[in-house]
């Protein structure tokens, strides 16, 4: 089981309490598709992804980024049991979406960059450590049911 300090819980809850999902979600997914273009393979039905401008103005991508970000809400509410909380989602990503789990880390790195840009200097090394630990647990849980 993952051990969380009071400080880590407070940091994670604090970030999500003040999160602009519309902005951060959209930006994180866009950045992922631009910085790691092979991730576009999962978005064939989303319309024009031809270049960075197209990706940044694509409403389907923006909406999906927000959806993904809200997907993290359940992990925040169940920090002591993220593995079980995401068992179904993990099966979905494996069996239905066929997403290579390495991609979870790529998106999580882009999310970190976007959050860092938003929070600026308040994204201290300690905050970054708690944030990345949280995302690492989420990523691990999402990959857990693959076989």
């Amino acid at each position, binding site marked *: 089981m993952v051990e969380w300090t009071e400080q880590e819980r407070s940091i994670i809850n604090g970030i999500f309490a003040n999160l602009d999902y519309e902005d951060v979600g959209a930006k994180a997914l866009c950045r992922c598709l*631009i910085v790691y273009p092979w991730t576009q393979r999962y978005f064939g039905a989303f319309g024009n992804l031809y270049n*960075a401008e197209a990706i940044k103005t694509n409403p389907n991508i923006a909406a999906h980024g927000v959806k993904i970000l809200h997907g993290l809400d359940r992990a925040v509410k169940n920090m002591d049991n993220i593995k079980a909380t995401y068992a179904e989602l993990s099966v979905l990503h494996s069996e239905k979406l066929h997403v290579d789990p390495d991609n979870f880390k790529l998106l999580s790195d882009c999310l970190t960059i976007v959050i860092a840009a938003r929070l600026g200097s308040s994204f201290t090394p300690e905050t970054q450590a708690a944030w990345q630990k949280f995302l690492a647990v989420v990523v691990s849980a999402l990959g857990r049911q693959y076989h």
Partner: protein
Amino acid sequence: MSLNANDKEVVKAFWAKVSGKADAIGGDALGRMVTVYPQTKTYFAHWKDLRPGSAPLMKHGKTVMGGVADAVTKIDDLTGGLLTLSELHAFTLRVDPANFKILAHNILVVMAIMYPNDFTPEVHVSLDKFLAALARALAEKYR
């Protein structure tokens, strides 16, 4: 995933913008690296104070970014240009190359914090490719 002409232009232009704060960037990146990835502290056991902002970390951040600055000037031939640095890392420092990726990530985080509007996805991808190419050049002489 080698650097194309656009990548090189983007990296040079962004570096021109940020090079004034190179020392601070390096110090901040190293502080984050040892905090977020504590296993990296094993390379700095000879320093008493590894807290973010400590003197040895800030000094070393300056050294590391000096290397990055040098690499920017040698962007057309990183392997050749960084030969001596590669030998240093391979034979003397013997830093596991996996750590280059870790430090690169933290440099990118610092860029996002310090230059939120300039560190666009387009700049991000070129800088990420550049740091990866730099890491490859540094690992050249390892075996």
